[in-house]
């Protein structure tokens, strides 16, 4: 029996830029950061969570240059990785992200029968969705 998702990965064009986005903008925390020659194992995770997300930059030693070039093409087309996070306040987070300079939203927060979600892209084109499950209390406007 599998007991947890330990590591997943998101393919990025630049690990340093990815780290800045996922930690300083999105609010994740850095997990591991180990260098081995030209290879850097750097992960982020939801604060307090166990699942680490490897920020995977295509290239040697993982990929030959031709493969890496194909992967970079697919990343920037938005056809490669996607992540779905949960939040306890998706509308508040939307405002926080805007204040931190995030502009690449694919969808502002919208309410559905399963909760409220929003969409954005990381700096490279990967799709990110953030979901607040259940009925979200609405602000009183009148």
């Amino acid at each position, binding site marked *: 029996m599998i007991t947890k998702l330990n590591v997943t990965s998101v393919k990025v064009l630049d690990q340093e830029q990815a780290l800045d986005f996922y930690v300083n903008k999105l609010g994740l925390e850095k997990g591991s950061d180990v260098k081995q020659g030209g290879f850097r194992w750097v992960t982020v995770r939801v604060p307090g969570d166990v699942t680490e997300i490897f920020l995977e930059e295509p290239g040697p030693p993982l990929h030959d240059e031709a493969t890496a070039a194909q992967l970079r093409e697919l990343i920037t087309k938005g056809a490669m990785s996607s992540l779905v996070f949960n939040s306890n306040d998706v509308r508040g987070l939307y405002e926080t992200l805007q204040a931190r300079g995030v502009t*690449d939203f694919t969808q502002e927060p919208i309410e559905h029968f399963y909760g409220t979600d929003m969409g954005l892209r990381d700096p490279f084109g990967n799709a990110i969705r953030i979901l607040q499950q259940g009925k979200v209390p609405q602000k009183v406007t009148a």
Partner: protein
Amino acid sequence: MNRRLLRARDAMDRAYAEPLDVRAVAAVAHLSEAHFSRSFRATFGETPHRYLQRRRVERSMFLLRETDRSVTDICFDVGFTSLGTFSRTFHEIVGETPSEYRAGHGPVMAPNCIWMAATRPVVAAGVAVRVSSFGEADAPVPA
């Protein structure tokens, strides 16, 4: 370049209900209209106009399934400016009329983002119609 084109495609996904023209969408990618249309087609396999049509048709399919709004209201809700163009485009892409589609499909209980992707129609006729303009009224009618 891909990233800029993707940003323009996202803009179409977001603003499908508005009267978009190719100039406005090309501006999101910082490209001329001609260069944008050519590059978009090379990158995503269809013209921006066709992509926007599929987006609008997908949203109309959603509204036909999930709401009681009239076909005419839905036509305008999703950004078409004429019922004739909407009906013709819907039939060409889905393979049945909006009313026939509504009669055959009820609400779908799955997260929206999944269904937006899963039910985004491929063109039923399998024909890539070449159109260079977003002006629905001016779009050439396939013979």
